[in-house]
């Protein structure tokens, strides 16, 4: 009975971190749909989200305000990367490989700059609601977990409405379906590119802020998160934001179960194995590729 509740706990934790992966995965999809680019700097947004919030909170800025400022800052970083790194290559019609390499290099630059500014010690954030966890059938449900679930659901609904109802959101979807046709209809494809980076960076930042109280953040957490987000996007069928979220939940669950049965040292290995398994056996994901 005790073991069963431990399993339940594991599943809950897996789903909670899965939400984070899902949000990062959506970030991948948003940029990919707008531009066909896979942004390997995605992990930097997550790391910056946790890190900037930490710095602000340690300067006695209230958490909510710190989070809001951070999201805006990171979205700005997204736009800056788009302007400085991606746009010149995009204009030159650089190959996909060069684009990946450049965004990966951007990730390293951000990572190392962070290392220089804040050092290599792991940082953490206080939980948003400092109350003892709820207990349900012997499973402890921390308030941070509820924050993660709640925020994820709100974000997904908001994104759904954004893409369905607003003019800008529809324009982005049009770009995803056919960029040339979208351009002919007077949609500024280049604006969409910048917007997609801002949106995706903002999502990454939120994921980073949500997850940091449950673990920690350090200059080098970006790459593992980016990989996990990418796996989420692949598992969901690349280019499907909702699929990516489901993919994130799947991955979080698989990872938690692997750790539960094999030990925590294998957390990253488990994720990477899931990635390779999907790439080799079913690269179009659970729901099938969007394109």
């Amino acid at each position: 009975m005790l073991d069963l509740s431990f399993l339940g706990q594991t599943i809950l934790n897996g789903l909670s971190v899965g939400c984070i992966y899902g949000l990062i995965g959506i970030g991948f999809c948003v940029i990919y749909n707008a531009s066909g680019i896979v942004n390997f700097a995605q992990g930097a947004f997550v790391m910056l989200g946790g890190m900037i919030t930490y710095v602000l909170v340690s300067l006695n800025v209230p958490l909510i305000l710190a989070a809001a400022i951070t999201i805006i800052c990171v979205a700005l970083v997204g736009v800056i990367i788009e302007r400085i790194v991606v746009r010149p290559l995009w204009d030159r019609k650089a190959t996909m490989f060069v684009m990946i390499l450049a965004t990966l290099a951007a990730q390293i630059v951000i990572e190392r700059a962070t290392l220089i500014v804040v050092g290599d010690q792991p940082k953490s954030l206080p939980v948003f609601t400092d109350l003892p966890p709820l207990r349900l059938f012997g499973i402890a449900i921390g308030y941070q977990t509820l924050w993660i679930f709640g925020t994820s659901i709100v974000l997904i609904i908001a994104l759904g409405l954004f893409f369905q109802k607003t003019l800008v959101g529809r324009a982005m979807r049009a770009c995803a379906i056919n960029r040339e046709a979208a351009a002919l209809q007077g949609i500024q494809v280049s604006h969409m590119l910048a917007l997609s980076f801002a949106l995706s960076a903002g999502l990454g930042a939120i994921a980073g802020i949500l997850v940091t109280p449950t673990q920690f953040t350090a200059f080098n957490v970006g790459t593992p998160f980016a990989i996990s987000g990418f796996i989420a996007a692949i598992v969901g069928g690349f280019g499907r934001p909702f699929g990516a979220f489901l993919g994130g939940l799947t991955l979080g669950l698989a990872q938690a179960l692997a750790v539960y049965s094999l030990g925590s040292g294998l957390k990253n290995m488990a994720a990477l194995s899931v990635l390779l398994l999907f790439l080799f056996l079913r690269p179009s994901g659970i729901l099938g590729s969007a394109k």
Partner: protein
Amino acid sequence: MTNSPATISSKLMAALRHAPAIAAAGMVAYAIADGGYIVTVVGFGLIYTIFVAGLNIFMGYAGQTSFGQNAFAAIGAYASAVLTATYGWPPLLAALAGIVATAICAFVIGYPTLRLKGHYLAMATLAIGLIIYEVAVQWQSVTNGYMGISGIPALGIGHYELLSDRAQLIFLAIMAVLSLAASWLLRHSRFGRALVALSGSEDAARALGINVRQYKLTAFIISAIYASISGTLFVHIVGFISPEMIGMNMVILAFTMLYVGGIGTTTGPLIGAIVIGLLPESIRSFKDYQDLVYGAALILILIYAPGGIASLDQVVKKLLRTKAPAKEVAP
């Protein structure tokens, strides 16, 4: 006709094309003659020359993508380290075992991976590099985890050991020259032509009867063997290996060198590795900023000079060409 400006400038161009490679070779010769601290730096550059030359065969010639070649350097490095330091094998035998192990791993990994395309291939190879890193960290009983393995003997056969810095550097220089020569021979052969063909257009290559899959895999394995050799040399020269030495930063560094030197050219890896290898010496307290600068440099090169230093003559040519018509127009 022989004195026409066109002929002179074309001769100049030819000289210019080889200038960076000659300068890099000169740097190596200087280090061998000087024997001072510069030996370490140039030695490091020569080891990377081999790694990048391998990367160049797979990416420059065959036009493929791998972000995980550090995995094969790691296999070579750890095979040499474990077999010599832990089990007392002679370095040469350990190196050969490492190469064989690498080739087998490259085949097993490459067979399913190289069927992927685009960002799937990029991410799969990245994952392979990360998995090897995780293995190096987690497989404590063999790799000693984060602590790494020390006490790795110097290179040598039987009783002859390469102990002096200068002897080591000469040996590294010979190895680097051999690997560049092999790269040149491969490029200028039926094999190399098949690689540039599949790089140019897989459909066209297949229509001409080239087994694209087989050639990609062969190039991948050759590239891995180069990486393995560089890994082996590295541990014997430094005498130490830890997971941090074979992480993602190694990949970014190698790409920076490849692009600085000029991707797809035979001597590009040497040029890039020497230039980037010397960079830390020209900037004080560079260590902290090293990866930052490499990353930023890579971005700048990708944007502004995708051909690298080896294609400097092309850049000059382009500049001259844009100026030339203006002269003709002038009365």
